């Protein structure tokens, strides 16, 4: 396909997608329209809409292109589905996607967990460039990607992840936000406004987007504001039975009906500018976001009888603490932990279409991320995490032969990381990586072959030559000057379209991940995970050997998609319990501790083979077509089981299954969704089992068009209608902060 043809097809698709959007009446707002997956049935125009003069395209043909089946290992969330699922965090937004769970740490933090993997094994991207926050370092660090900006979120597992490096061995989550405009708006000025209100925690979310463009210039301006109070829950925040069983503590500091210190506030905006030419484009954007949130109190603050130095004995005798509440009052004794996160990004993107015969595109992408978050106790900063990263990618897409297409690229990352202050358990470190990769696709009749290759070199350089354990009489640990890793990855996939509407995909993947900074260099207490972490500078690459078999079958009335996978990971990096404990207050290492709440188990990073296996499955059917609309039913389930040689991998999601009943048309839609999460009995070493729970949600939306200039979308989402106490097995803080209770979200979106 020539570049001219490609552009024409792209333009045609844009027009047709726009047409499709017109049909469903939501136009391009903060998110493009539908579907959440390839299972969504093709849209059909209503008779009245056929009178629209704009309708002049070959609708059937176009819809077919727009809704081409996705790879079985890929899911896309956009349009109305994204609008209805959008939550305060990326993990919350994606928690209904197959194979994806939300690792919460209170409502302010939500990391997507893909097939049981997260952190350093799942790359979180913002339009193709990493989020580069501190979320891979610790589960209490939020992702610095604001879901409100998202226009489309892709969750990808399979050969394409090879473009993104070793940290994508568990998959990628790419949030596309169109901050750098890639096409002109349909009129000189277009945009959208959205506001929503959540009854749980009185949450308010507001966002706007304005696109201005003419001829070769396009500008995008966007902003958002999000605020919420403490999350409301059924029952008590802390699982008292667990605390009694685990720590032998009763009479703990506990609160019912709410999770204290879970309020948050977030504000951000971006400006993007693009030159759009026939032969190429270039654009840049500057964005800034701030997020202030609290994390629920963990075990270190649950025992009212435990204070340092015998204060618990002295304070009850003091009758008047006035003037000294700031150091001896309740808030001072059990202070809240707050995080103040700031991120500024500078993104640049350039594409050159068909610069040479056989070369379809040369793409250049670079992002400069200045990330910082300060952890505060009683308003005083005690640790500052900084991550200054530059990530670039240069890519050549070719169409060398009629049936052979592919990409060759180079990707590089330069990262300066530091965590300075009281909880400095990782030294200031520079990390650089350089990767070369290629992905090629060849089509032969009913078969499509894909192969990916990548080689990556990375260097980790701690700035300090020694690392001292705070408060310890131990001499400082010597650190190596330079750690170097070489990782090669290869993937192969074959897709067989055994029917016109069905295909079978087999993927073989052998990918390597180099150890991350905290796995190599951490040393010290880590209160958020209730652990004392010991890094290991001799860690080797972790190697994933994945076999994934997927089937995708779509007809007008029925759709079915399923994957089954087996993942044998060699040298899986995990935290081995040394059997020793660290007494936090006295900063002393002991063999055993009287009060487990005051001591942290000491974990050393180590490697051991691990096995993951699981599946994702989804079936959808239109049950009946009524005059008012279609009645549809969707059934879904996912499961993952992970084992180390001596037990289960901790914090994996349980078996999940459910059904969604939908009823609606292009103007309005309703859905009732039931999800059953079974108990997670295979909790893993040093973890406790979690109970099963039922989650019932309902959604409704209505599209209202006022002339040609403005159209409105009204939506409502009711979550956790049964008001169940839900403690998610993937959450580090599940015993201290359950998932939110019943909530109703009301939203209004206006596009112009």
């Amino acid at each position, binding site marked *: 396909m020539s570049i001219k043809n490609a552009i024409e097809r792209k333009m045609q698709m844009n027009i047709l997608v726009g047409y499709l959007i017109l049909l469903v009446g939501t136009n391009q707002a903060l998110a493009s329209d539908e579907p959440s997956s390839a299972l969504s049935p093709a849209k059909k125009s209503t008779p009245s809409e056929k009178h629209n003069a704009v309708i002049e395209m070959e609708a059937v043909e176009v819809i077919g292109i727009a809704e081409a089946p996705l790879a079985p290992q890929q899911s896309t969330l956009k349009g109305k589905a994204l609008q209805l699922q959008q939550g305060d965090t990326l993990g919350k937004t994606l928690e209904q996607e197959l194979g994806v769970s939300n690792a919460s740490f209170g409502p302010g933090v939500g990391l997507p967990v893909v097939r049981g993997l997260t952190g350093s094994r799942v790359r979180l991207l913002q339009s193709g460039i990493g989020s580069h926050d501190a979320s891979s370092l610790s589960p209490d660090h939020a992702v610095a990607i604001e879901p409100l900006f998202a226009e489309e979120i892709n969750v990808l597992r399979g050969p394409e992840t090879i473009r993104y490096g070793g940290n994508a061995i568990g998959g990628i989550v790419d949030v596309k936000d169109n901050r750098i405009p890639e096409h002109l708006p349909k009129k000189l000025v277009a945009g959208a406004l959205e506001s929503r209100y959540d009854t749980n925690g009185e949450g308010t979310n507001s966002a706007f987007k304005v696109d201005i463009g003419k001829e070769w210039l396009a500008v995008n301006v966007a902003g958002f504001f999000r605020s919420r109070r403490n999350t409301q829950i059924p029952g008590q925040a802390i699982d008292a039975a667990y605390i009694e069983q685990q*720590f032998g503590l009763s009479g703990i500091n506990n609160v019912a009906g709410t999770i204290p210190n879970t309020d948050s506030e977030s504000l951000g905006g971006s400006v993007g500018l693009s030159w759009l030419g026939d032969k190429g484009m270039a654009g840049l954007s500057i964005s800034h976001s701030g997020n202030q949130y609290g994390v629920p109190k963990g075990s270190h603050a649950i025992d009212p009888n435990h204070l340092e*130095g015998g204060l618990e004995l002295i304070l009850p005798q003091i009758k008047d603490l006035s003037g000294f509440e700031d150091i001896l009052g309740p808030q001072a004794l059990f202070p809240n932990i707050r995080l103040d996160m700031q991120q500024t990004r500078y993104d640049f993107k350039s594409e050159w279409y068909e610069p040479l015969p056989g070369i379809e595109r040369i793409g250049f992408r670079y992002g400069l991320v200045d990330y910082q978050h300060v952890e505060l106790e009683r308003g005083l900063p005690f640790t500052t995490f900084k991550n200054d990263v530059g990530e670039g990618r240069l890519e050549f897409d070719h169409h060398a032969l009629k049936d052979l297409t592919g990409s060759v690229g180079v990707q590089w990352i330069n990262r300066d990381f530091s965590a300075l202050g009281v909880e400095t358990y990782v030294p200031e470190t520079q990390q650089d990586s350089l990767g070369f990769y290629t992905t090629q696709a060849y089509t032969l009749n009913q078969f499509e072959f894909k192969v990916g290759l990548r080689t990556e070199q990375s260097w980790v350089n701690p700035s300090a030559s020694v690392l001292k354990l705070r408060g310890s009489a131990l001499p400082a640990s010597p650190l190596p000057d330079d750690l170097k890793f070489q990782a090669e990855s290869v993937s192969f996939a074959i897709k067989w379209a055994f029917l016109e509407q069905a295909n079978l995909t087999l993927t073989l993947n052998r990918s390597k991940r180099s150890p991350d900074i905290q796995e190599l260099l951490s040393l010290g207490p880590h209160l958020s995970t209730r652990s004392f972490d010991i890094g290991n500078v001799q860690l080797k690459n972790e190697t994933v050997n994945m076999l994934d078999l997927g089937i995708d079958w779509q007809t007008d009335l029925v759709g079915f998609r399923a994957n089954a996978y087996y993942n044998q990971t060699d040298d899986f990096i995990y935290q081995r319990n040394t059997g020793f404990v660290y007494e936090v207050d006295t900063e002393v290492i002991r063999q055993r501790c009287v009060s487990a709440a005051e001591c942290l188990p000491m974990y050393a990073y180590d490697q051991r083979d691990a096995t993951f296996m699981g599946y994702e499955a989804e079936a959808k059917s239109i049950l009946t077509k009524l005059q008012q609309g279609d009645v549809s039913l969707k059934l879904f389930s996912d499961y993952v089981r992970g084992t180390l040689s001596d037990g289960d991998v901790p914090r994996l999601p349980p078996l999940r299954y459910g059904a969604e009943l939908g009823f609606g048309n292009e103007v309005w839609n309703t859905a009732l969704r039931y999800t059953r999460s079974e108990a997670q009995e295979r909790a893993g070493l040093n973890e406790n089992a979690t109970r099963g729970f039922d989650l019932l949600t309902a959604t409704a939306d209505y599209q209202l068009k006022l002339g040609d200039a403005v159209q409105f979308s009204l939506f409502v989402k009711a979550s956790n209608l049964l008001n169940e106490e839900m403690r998610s097995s993937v959450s580090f803080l599940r015993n201290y902060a359950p998932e939110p209770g019943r909530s109703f979200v009301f939203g209004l979106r206006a596009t112009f």
Partner: protein
Amino acid sequence: MTQLLTVRQFSQMGLLLTVIIVSSAVQAVHLDVEVWGEKDALQAGFCHTPNIVGCDLDGLTSGLNLPAGSLPIEASTGKAIFLADFQDLPGGAFKTKNPGFQAIQNALSPNEPISYRALGVLKYWSTTASAWETAPATTRITLFGGLDLSSGVFNNPAQCNGQLLCFSDAAQGTGKSTQFTGAGIQGAPELLLDVASNQGALHTHLNFFLENAQGQLGGPDGAYLVEMQVFSRSRSTPSAPFLVMFNAGLSNESFTAALSALVKTVSKPASTLPIVNPSDPALPVSKPPITSFTQGDADLDGDIDRVDIALILLAAQKNEVALVEGDTRDMDNDGAISRQDATLARAKCTLRLCNIPVSPLNASAVDEPAVFNLNTKTLDIRDVQVQDQHFQVQMQLEDNTHLRLKALQPQTKQSGQASEYDVVSGELSIPTMSADQHYYQVRMRNMGSFQFEVEQVEEIKGVSE
């Protein structure tokens, strides 16, 4: 002066202990073991100095129905008996961290390792027998000592298969715990208690577990008695042996009966108190001068923290007067302990969660004595010596000649190029400060309100990175 300060330190220590005793009445009665050095010997006891107001043990004795003025001392041997309760923590019926071990500032040498030695056999007293006898073979008390960092912990990755910290084989397993049994001591008879601070202070709590012979928590109700002593490898004479008596589910009355069975033939007097030496303990040569006690350090543990503020507030509530001249609680030296003293002490608090603004310090200064960042206009000083204490300091440039103290944290890793702060003159001398690949010698002066004025900046020639 030395004598005066010694009296002061012990009187104040006694005050702290009294606070703990009285407060403990609602919980378990216990008293930490006080440890101190005397020349080449280590000592341990209740209350080092007699006839001092702060050393009133009435609360303890009255709670146990002992004869007025008497102390829990074993009649037959004169050994001090420290009391603890396995049920002093909610939910944990068979484990306790008490008694703890305390040494006030300068009572020990800086960084002096202190160990315990288990002695004798485990004794048991039940309500049915109403007599002390050897504990049954099915019951034991296990004590986990601290890890000896010199032999039990490695922190060289080359020794640890790459780990930044690892433990020797000897540090693992039951070899690093002590079992008190009816047949004698099993496991390790000697283990590390803790290492004294740079100021020669120590406060630690070990972990005692009541178990059956298989190591499972639990045991019959009753009172248990173990014997131990403390010693230091840098002193030739260990402390006199002392006893620890544990309550395991007995009523206060029964526990008192068990204690009375040990102390019944003894009554007071103060002059017979154990391990009491009214004279000034001779200090090891390596000790820092005793004049380094800090005003505001009410518990004399070498720092000013929230415990000190609370102790001063409590003393003010009781309208206490300064015990001696220079009482560390009497910040304004007016002879009375008042809330004003607490306010002044708070202003001197050097630890987190006190009054001094604390912000993260720049670790880039770790390898440099002092670094001035031209971009952020911050000065990071790795090691500032203030008398015998060391701090890591961060300052922010306000104008061309003034810097404001932004952060202050205790520095445990001292260097050979420490900057020096003179508390009398307020002068801060920085021998080497790097800025933009040049090196300078800097002198500045404390103008109050955390503000410093630069008096001299002189480039050091011939030094390059």
